[in-house]
């Protein structure tokens, strides 16, 4: 039985350190060993070998952003669910109602985004279709 937090999580730490060390080591190695060429072509975005045309800004689409937003939404919900699970056995109905209210609110946010066309990748968003 470990006696302190440090001991408890020591294995985790070791693993994390190994992972980081490995990644860092590899990167450093490639940095040291690899040849560094800096020119325009090298700095260009890689588009499957095709020469990029136009300004990067033209490919700008906020849908990516909205999806990331959705991700955050559910991320937070998941995080709240974790402690909820811990106490659910104790609180039963009460906790259920609490979480229900929370989830309904979160879901209405999701519904809103969905209806606003955040998940619509067909090229036209809802608002346009409606017009």
């Amino acid at each position: 039985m470990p006696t302190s937090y440090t001991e408890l999580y020591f294995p985790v730490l070791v693993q994390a350190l190994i992972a980081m060390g490995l990644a860092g080591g590899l990167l450093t190695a490639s940095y040291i060993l690899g040849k560094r060429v800096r020119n325009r072509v090298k700095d260009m975005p890689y588009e499957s070998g095709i020469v990029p045309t136009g300004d990067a800004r033209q490919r700008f689409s906020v849908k990516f952003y909205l999806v990331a937003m959705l991700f955050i939404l559910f991320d937070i919900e998941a995080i709240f669910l974790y402690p909820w699970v811990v106490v659910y056995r104790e609180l039963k109905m009460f906790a259920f109602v609490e979480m229900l209210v929370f989830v309904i609110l979160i879901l209405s946010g999701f519904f809103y985004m969905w209806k606003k066309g955040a998940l619509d990748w067909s090229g036209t968003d809802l608002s346009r279709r409606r017009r």
Partner: protein
Amino acid sequence: MLIDTVLFYIFAALVLGGGILTITRRNAVHSAMWLIVSLLGVAGLYLQQQAEFLFAVQIVLYVGGIMVLFLFVIMLVNLDQAARERQFNRHWFVALVAVAAVGAEIGYFIYRGRTGFHIAELGAPIAAPHALGNTEMLADTLFSEYLLPFEIASLLLLVAVVGAVVMAKKRIQ
């Protein structure tokens, strides 16, 4: 005990190094990467102070959520242009002095007031066994005392959703 101290130094180095590099790297992507390093360091310090739930949240929400959002945005805007820009303002020196003053002030103050932190006997001690961690206690408190903030947090998220959509969606004519 020694290992605690050593770990503290390691994490502190991560936090500070990451922080410094965040605010000094030219490239926004690099800045974000170093910010992640710094956040991980902070997460480590959380763990060291028995806040494993926060440790998880820090990694899942902060690193995995917020920083992803940052990186998305950096990718969406014109990276080349952003990278080419001179990152520092001419007045950086003034700012640096001001910041050093703030730091010195806060540092001095904490140093002076360090004895002030030992009136700790007010709160209920964390009596939970180590193995359990304090997540259960935290959950208990969250769903009783902090019930209202918890529910209200969903409202906050709604605001964020509406706000992000309003700002980011295309204009309907």
